[in-house]
């Protein structure tokens, strides 16, 4: 604590170089504001809607968690069907739910993307689909083995079982998602996991495969988010909010400064585009702890895109959006309007490339952006000024400006959308 006092005293002297520092109220006052927000938000959460509630279950497709044995028997039934087809001399084919963007639907009531019911036939005896059909059969047989042996493997393991056939991990990964859709189960129930990518640090205690983990005592790097969510349970926390960070660099800054001790919170990052495990973990935290989720992303179209993947799901995995999406994520920063508000110097802003502007304009057409007028306004501002900035742009006021001024001020003003 003595250390902290000294640092505070020091920083007062250089308030000129850290603008807006004088606006900051005391930590206690900010905490009080936060507490009132948290209590009001936790009381308002209700049971989430489902497709059935909206009478959409007939036209939309959704998968569910299946037990290992039911996955196995579904595969077996499918294989028997294939065998019948082959023996009758008709070759064989799969009927695969289409995951193309034309088959996606944003449902505003659910605030997430769902998959419509269009399917494509993947016949073996056609030159354009023979490869994918063969890979699908191969993946089915591999998953069947996993079911028999009751083990987990990574996507990379799966790829290495037949590198010659798969050629590229992208191909086996894509077919794995197809297989989930065909079987109607989540990807986790196929016993195939992705390598750990996300990390969490802060006021959270949970059990991982029976071991209790205290995320305040995980060192600077934090705890890697376990790839299979079914091992995770018993979540406890005294945090006031969850802080979702896009970038590893900002995460390290906050973790090292022990930001979660000053304002009790849980800090999560997936280091860029989120993987399935991180999304499942965030959802679980939100559901069990009922905390508001605040997102800290870059002020560029990709930052907002990442935010939308957490919130509404990705098109690639929309079949499982019910399990993967976390509703009601607030956009804390860095927002395009912050660039002028916090007087971020010109040399720290970057001009948007033509590709960036195109992505930005495309996002403006997306329903999940349109539903939030605040976001539309911010995005319009970004496309108009043609400027973007990374979280690191704040380092121009000192490396700790983010944790010591920017975030506390944002929290104090409840400046999120």
């Amino acid at each position, binding site marked *: 604590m003595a250390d902290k006092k000294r640092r505070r005293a020091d920083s007062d002297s250089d308030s000129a170089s850290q603008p807006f520092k004088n606006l900051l109220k005391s930590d206690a006052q900010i905490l009080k504001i936060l507490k009132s927000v948290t209590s009001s938000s936790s009381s308002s959460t209700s049971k989430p809607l489902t497709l059935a509630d909206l009478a959409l279950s007939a036209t939309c497709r959704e998968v569910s968690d299946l037990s290992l044995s039911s996955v196995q*028997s579904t*595969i*077996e039934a499918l*294989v*028997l069907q*294939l*065998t*019948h087809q*082959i*023996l009758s*001399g*008709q*070759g*064989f084919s799969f009927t695969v739910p289409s995951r193309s963007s034309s088959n996606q639907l944003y449902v505003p009531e659910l605030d997430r993307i769902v998959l419509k019911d269009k399917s494509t036939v993947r016949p*073996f*005896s*056609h*030159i354009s689909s*023979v*490869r994918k*059909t*063969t890979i699908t*059969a*191969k993946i*089915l*047989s591999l998953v*069947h*083995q996993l079911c*028999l042996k009751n083990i987990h493997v990574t996507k990379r393991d799966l790829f290495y079982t*037949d590198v010659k*056939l798969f050629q590229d991990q992208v191909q086996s990964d894509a077919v794995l998602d197809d297989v989930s859709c065909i079987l109607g189960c989540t990807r986790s129930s196929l016993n195939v996991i992705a390598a750990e990518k996300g990390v969490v640090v802060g006021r959270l205690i949970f059990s991982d495969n029976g071991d209790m983990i205290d995320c305040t005592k995980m060192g600077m790097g934090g705890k890697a988010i376990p790839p299979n969510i079914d091992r995770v349970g018993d979540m406890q926390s005294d945090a006031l909010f969850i802080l979702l960070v896009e970038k590893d660099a900002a995460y390290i800054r906050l973790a090292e400064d022990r930001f979660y001790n000053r304002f009790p919170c849980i800090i999560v990052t997936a280091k860029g585009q989120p993987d399935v495990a991180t999304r499942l973990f965030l959802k679980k935290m939100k559901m069990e702890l009922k905390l508001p989720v605040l997102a800290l992303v870059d002020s560029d179209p990709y930052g907002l895109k990442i935010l939308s993947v957490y919130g509404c799901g990705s098109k690639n995995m929309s079949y499982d959006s019910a399990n993967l999406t976390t509703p009601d994520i607030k956009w804390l920063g860095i927002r395009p309007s912050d660039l002028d508000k916090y007087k971020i110097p010109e040399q720290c802003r970057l001009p948007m490339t033509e590709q960036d502007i195109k992505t930005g304009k495309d996002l403006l057409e997306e329903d999940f952006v349109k539903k939030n007028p605040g976001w539309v306004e911010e995005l319009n501002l970004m496309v108009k000024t043609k400027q973007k900035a990374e979280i690191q742009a704040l380092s121009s006021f000192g490396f700790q400006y983010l944790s010591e001024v920017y975030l506390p001020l944002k929290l104090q003003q409840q400046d999120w959308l």
Partner: protein
Amino acid sequence: MESECPTETKKGKSKTPKKAKESILKQKSPAEFFAENKNIAGFDNPGKCLYTTVRELVENALDSAEAISELPVIEITIEEIVKSKFNSMIGLVDRERVDEELYDDYETAKAREKRLAKEARAQEIQAKNAALGKKVKEHAVSKSSKGRGEASFYRVTCRDNGRGMPHDDIPNMFGRVLSGTKYGLKQTRGKFGLGAKMALIWSKMSTGLPIEISSSMRGQNYLSFCRLDIDIHRNIPHIHLHEKRDNKDKWRGAEIQVVIEGNWTTYRSKILHYMRQMAVITPYAQFLFKFVSDAPDKNVTIKFARRTDVMPPVPVETKHHPSSVDILLIKRLIAETSKQNLMQFLQHEFVNIGKPLAERLIGEMGPEFSPKTAVKSLTDQQIVRIHQLFRQAKFDDPSGDCLSPAGEYNLRLGIIKELHPDMVATYSGSAQVFEGHPFIVEAGVSVGGKDVKQGLNIFRFANRIPLLFEQGGDVVTRTALKRISWNNYKINQTQDKIGVFVSIVSTKIPFKGTGKEYIGDDISEIASAVKSAIQQCCIQLKSKIVKKMQAREQQERKRNLSKYIPDATNAVYDVLKEMAKSHASKKKRYEEGDADILRKVSDHLITKETLYEKLTQHVEKVDYEMALEYATQTGVREEPREDIYLESLDDKGNFFDFHSPIFVFRLFL
């Protein structure tokens, strides 16, 4: 163009007397100027000199034949002359070296010891390898490095079937720099109008030997022979021999022979490339190229045969476009014109100025101008005013009628003839304008072929001559490399053998640099014309390539499908086997149809092979059906036919004609 030479001459003059204490005013002749600055005409070093000499002679020969609309037949011979032969030619006795140490290539005793030891080692290794039965390449041990003094000499002879030269004009045509016939405003091959004169200056500088010219024109019953060199200081011809000889064979054309210092070893490939590319752009000409030396294995003989008898029209001389002239040029036109007043002058000395426009222009010039103003009485200020107005006023673009592009047909034939590509597409753009000069861009793109390296092979032509040097900065190279997305046209930029041919013709080619070897990338009119011409070719190719890919897909469908049968059957069978196991151990119950299959699997009645066979049969059936469908859809479609050119035989010998109602079959005996 010619106007820049005298000005440069003056510049050269001002440089030389710097060292002298009293500066003496010296006059320099144009010939002297070019002798000192021979690099601006492409005579940088002995190798390049040989290349440029060949090039100038070939281009003159082509111009000469085209001027009388005769299909060109050109023979070019380079004969290597060894030093002793050269010495005897000039009447110099070969002298043995007396004071060995005087020479640059003298080998000291120490160096010789070293060399002998090295050679002995090499021999030892070779002997060892031979003993072990290894085959070793015989590498030439004796690499005679040329000393400074060891120059190589070449006799370059070029013979054509062109117009020939008037007997009395020959000395001035070769012995006086900056006197020429190509000084009008038209599309020409020549660079400075220097042509063979530079070769003569170079021969005088390097060997001291004169040039020999034989020529005969149509209707002349004699042959002109002339041996001359040039008096560089006075820029006048120095005639050794000038006589009329018998022309027994009624030969018409010209033969020029010059002996120069050169370097065949380093410029061999450049010269051969030049000949090949010239053959591409002039398929109506026949070239015979020979290299003769004492070593028979070094000799080269290449015949570039004629493939068509369609020649592009002779480019016509045109008048200047008002937006392309400068003050100096206006003054010259005024001095030369036969018209009296301003009105007539404007109408007759420029293109795109009609009577009404001339009246409006004169009205705009100001009160001191009138249509009746005597053109020769215009003051300097008035000329500046005319020039200003020409710069600002709007004129119609000049037409491309005065240009003579190679023609799509000829370009295409040339590419097919020399590269034998799998596919070729050509495109000819319409005339466009840059600074008052019309230009036409033609392009050809080929895929595949003989002697073509993978990736982009770029062939550039300006006014129908190949450009070989300074490829990197050229507008064509840059466009092809950076601005064409080959992938869009199903062409692989690194794997496919792509030939890109771009020919630009204009009354003035905007060359960059002193050597006039490339066209800059900074002229947006030309850059965009080049880009769109190449793209047009690519679009044509794309449909061909797609069709070809479809046809290939047809052929390879069965193979591509069958390739996956083992993987697919293995995957299905693996699951079946596991299921059969659990079925046998009664772990799981199945419906009757399914149980039947599983029983057969455990009894080996259904095996991997069964599935394999069934799937193979299915693939064969599908393949047959699809092939049938493809055939009915596409029908029997053939590529459009192309005219072929058969060279006529000049043999007037014996033959029989077999006549039939539709053809004549001629049998030569």
